[in-house]
């Protein structure tokens, strides 16, 4: 009986302590103060497990269609390059200032399911917006197809694939 009482008191004290910490304003919320290793581990594991679970049943279409690259390239260049960079480009203000930092997508491509999910739904409490409300799945897959090839593109190839050709009709929107 005594142990239960002690446990209960300890739990209550912990809750009060936590509430006091939250209200005290002592938590450093600035993006220029990195998380502790533990917080980092919690957040990254939470993110990775959540995306893995939510995206496991997504059917990946054939991403080797050149049409998808032609469609996804200009979208990437107009909406994403400021945060996720391009071949031969420099770091940007956004890529340096955001925390968590946007991954440099010219370095490596993660699993297409993961990319599709992250683009469609965005990632909470990070700079990554959800593009699903404004772009259909087809258009998001085109960006995924482009991202899968992005790490191997030279700056010249990138320029050609991302320039929006005026003569080419754009079908999706």
């Amino acid at each position, binding site marked *: 009986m005594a142990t239960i009482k002690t446990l209960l008191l300890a739990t209550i004290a912990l809750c009060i302590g936590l509430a006091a910490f939250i209200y005290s304003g002592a938590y450093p919320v600035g993006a220029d103060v990195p998380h502790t290793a533990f917080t980092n581990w919690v957040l990254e594991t939470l993110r990775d497990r959540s995306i893995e679970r939510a995206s496991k049943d997504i059917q990946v279409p054939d991403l080797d269609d050149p049409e998808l690259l032609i469609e996804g390239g200009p979208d990437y260049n107009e909406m994403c390059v400021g945060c996720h960079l391009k071949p031969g480009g420099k770091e940007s203000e956004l890529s340096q200032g955001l925390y968590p930092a946007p991954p440099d997508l010219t370095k490596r491509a993660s699993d297409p399911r993961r990319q599709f999910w992250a683009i469609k739904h965005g990632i909470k409490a990070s700079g990554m917006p959800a593009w699903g409300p404004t772009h259909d799945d087809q258009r998001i897959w085109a960006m995924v197809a482009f991202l899968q090839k992005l790490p191997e593109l030279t700056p*010249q190839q990138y*320029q050609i694939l991302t320039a929006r050709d005026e003569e080419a009709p754009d079908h999706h929107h």
Partner: protein
Amino acid sequence: MKIFTPLLIVTLLLTLAAQAHDPSQHKDKAEKPQCAALKDMDIKKMDKQDPVTQALIKKCMKQLHPEEKPETEK
């Protein structure tokens, strides 16, 4: 002065909303694909099965071979 801050924020938000993505809005500042670079890449040595190569060639076809139009258009 106090009234200006909310006003500024609303203006800012409206500006952002107006910038929502629509490909047709990007038409005027669109740059052309610099297909001259493709010549240096030596297309013959590139893998024709590679989707990147196919996309590059497709995108540059019009620029590099404008003469290849259907007979009727000549």
